[in-house]
């Protein structure tokens, strides 16, 4: 028997859970969100400490396996060339995200039609456009209107500075005659909605102590809570319960003391991300749903997409920005749309970073032998530190059923809940796209004056975009949720995170994840009278 009963239960307080909680609040329903993590304390973020680069690889590591906090769950990723990056707290992975905030393009929703691969989405860019706008206002986006790579879209705040690194690479892109534009960033370039502006701490992906980066603990959540949503932290959901009539009944979870609790709900919304959501659904086995909840298609946990990343860096002869400034700067979508003469379908975005921290520069260069140790160390180090900049290539990952999130037969979290296992292979298309992105980036870096260019692909710890594992569609045999996020099998169960993506596009996903969450919320609000029909 459940101890408490609510109208709407949201599981997960990250990017999508926060957005849908805020949007549903005007229904005046009793909404509770269960989150396994804690509220963050910005004074504990690495950039408030001298040893920020060490802290960023330890307590604030992007790898849950490395962090191993009580609020984390382990992931068996031994059969994947790309490891998962996440964060489990109020704000979810937005605590650590870089805040690159591109939209999808209209063509991204029509991949099958245009390029004959993967599938089209059941919705289009026009459907999401108003929700993109709404989300932009809530998160606060810096950028510049007029990017020729996109349909017109608003810019709320001025772009982040180009700096020396952006200027240098802009020269390179211009020399090649290639597109570039200031990146849309979920980082406040001026005071916004109670948040202060970016002061160039240079440690965005370890948490923003200034509060300029739009993590949802400081954007959506304060508004949602003020309006009446109840957010319970340190509550880890083990399974979604099922009523006799086959509808979701609520959830069983463990509180901070490890005590098992149950909550009943009329509507359950899952927002645990592309790994946490399939894990939870697969853990929610019952007589009615022996293969896991909402899984009659067998697609829960399949079609995992990551975005394979290439990283290409150049060393220059003059000082650039070094460790100063947000990682976000400019992007290029010169190679975004399909051109089959390149040897692959679909495309990628370049996102130009600024520089590297002094420790990372020293360790990498000393280990590779590019910076001397011994008496020549200081001169040698000064020839690279503050002189490195470069970019990543974010390659569209196509859905493939054999890339999966399943339950590991042995690994469990600290509450004894089976942990996820990732099986992922890099496709030939991705491999070619990565190679191509490295070749073109090398050209642009050299055009900008780089004297040494280094690259890596795929970035082995770069599984920060988690998509596709409960995809949306109109056909219940080919998808897990319908075109407005409702499970085909369980009519009071909704999914709003990146798992519902049909394809991944060649851009970071969070702006689209949140626009989708707002769109699902609106679809629910419009159908309140017959939500379960």
């Amino acid at each position, binding site marked *: 028997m459940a101890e408490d009963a609510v109208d709407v239960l949201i599981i997960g307080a990250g990017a999508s859970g926060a957005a849908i909680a805020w949007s549903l609040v005007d229904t005046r329903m009793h909404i509770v969100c269960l989150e396994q993590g804690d509220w963050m304390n910005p004074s504990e973020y690495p*950039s408030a400490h001298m040893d920020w680069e060490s802290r960023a690889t330890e307590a604030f590591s992007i790898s849950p396996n490395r962090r191993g906090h009580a609020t984390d769950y382990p992931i068996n990723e031994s059969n994947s060339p790309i490891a998962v990056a996440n964060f489990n707290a109020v704000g979810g992975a937005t605590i650590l995200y870089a805040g690159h905030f591109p939209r999808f393009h209209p063509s991204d929703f029509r991949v099958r039609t245009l390029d004959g691969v993967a599938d089209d989405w059941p919705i289009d860019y026009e459907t999401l456009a108003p929700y993109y706008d709404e989300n932009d206002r809530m998160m606060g986006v810096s950028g510049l209107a007029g990017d020729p790579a996109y349909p017109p879209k608003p810019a709320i705040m001025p772009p982040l500075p180009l700096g020396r690194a952006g200027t240098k690479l*802009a020269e390179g892109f211009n020399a090649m005659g290639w597109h570039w534009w200031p990146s849309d960033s979920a980082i406040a370039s001026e005071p916004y909605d109670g948040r202060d502006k970016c002061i160039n701490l*240079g440690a965005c992906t370890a948490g923003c102590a200034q509060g300029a980066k739009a993590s949802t603990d400081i954007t959506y959540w304060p508004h949602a809570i003020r309006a009446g949503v109840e957010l319970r932290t340190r509550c880890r959901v083990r399974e979604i319960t099922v009523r006799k009539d086959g509808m979701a009944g609520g959830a069983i979870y463990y509180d901070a003391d490890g005590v098992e609790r149950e909550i009943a709900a009329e509507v359950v919304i899952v927002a645990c991300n592309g790994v946490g959501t399939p894990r939870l659904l697969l853990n929610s086995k019952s007589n009615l749903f022996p293969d896991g909840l909402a899984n009659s298609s067998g697609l829960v946990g399949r079609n995992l997409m990551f975005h394979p990343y290439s990283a290409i860096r150049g060393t220059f002869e003059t000082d650039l920005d070094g460790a100063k400034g947000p990682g976000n700067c400019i992007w290029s979508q010169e190679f975004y*749309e399909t051109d089959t003469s390149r040897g692959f379908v679909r495309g990628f975005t370049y996102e130009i970073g600024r520089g590297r921290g002094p420790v990372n520069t020293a*360790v990498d260069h000393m280990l590779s032998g590019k910076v001397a140790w011994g008496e020549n160390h200081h001169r040698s180090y000064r020839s690279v530190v503050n002189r490195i900049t470069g970019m990543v290539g974010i390659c569209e990952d196509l859905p493939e059923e054999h890339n999966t999130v399943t339950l590991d037969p042995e690994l469990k979290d600290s509450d004894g809940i089976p942990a996820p296992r990732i099986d992922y292979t890099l496709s030939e298309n991705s491999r070619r796209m990565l190679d191509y992105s490295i070749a073109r980036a090398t050209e642009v870096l050299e055009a900008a004056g780089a004297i040494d260019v280094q690259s890596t692909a795929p970035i082995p710890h770069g599984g920060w975009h988690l998509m596709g594992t409960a995809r949306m569609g109109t056909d219940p045999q080919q998808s897990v949720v319908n*075109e407005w996020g409702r499970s085909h099998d369980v009519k009071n169960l909704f999914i709003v995170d990146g798992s519902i993506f049909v394809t991944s596009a060649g851009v970071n996903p969070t702006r689209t994840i949140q626009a989708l969450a707002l769109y699902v919320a609106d679809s629910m609000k419009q159908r309140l009278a017959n939500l379960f029909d």
Partner: protein
Amino acid sequence: MRDVIASDSPYSSEEREVLRRVAGILIPSSDEYGIPGADDDLIFARILMLATEQAESIKSGIDALNALAIERHDDSFPQLNETQQTGLLHDEANSGFLRQVIRCTATSYYQDGRVLESIDLKSTPPFPGGHEIEQGDWSLLDPVKARAPFYRSIKAVRNRNV
């Protein structure tokens, strides 16, 4: 501080002596830049803390280095002169031991305020003061602004969704 480290450290005083010597050779002090070497008290204390996690393998690396010193020069590593010590480290350059020590040494060294100031960073944490970044040359965007929209049109294509 040394006493605290000594009592908490998994390393014996002999092992610490070797590590400190290695750190000082990897990153020596510099009069030119006015900065200490990695064998400085504060910096070395942090190196020892960082080296706790892999103490077992670093300790066997120290044993191996001492053994090599005795084999080549008939004396333990700390007793050798700098040229001999440096020569041994060059021979060990690709060993797991030296890579671990480089990692700990560089990590500790480049988080020291005195060192950071010498490379144009602050001697305090990035927050709260932050950093200045110049705007850069926005006129570079003019040719891109002049470019016609080039995103792919989906007008008139029929949806083939799942």
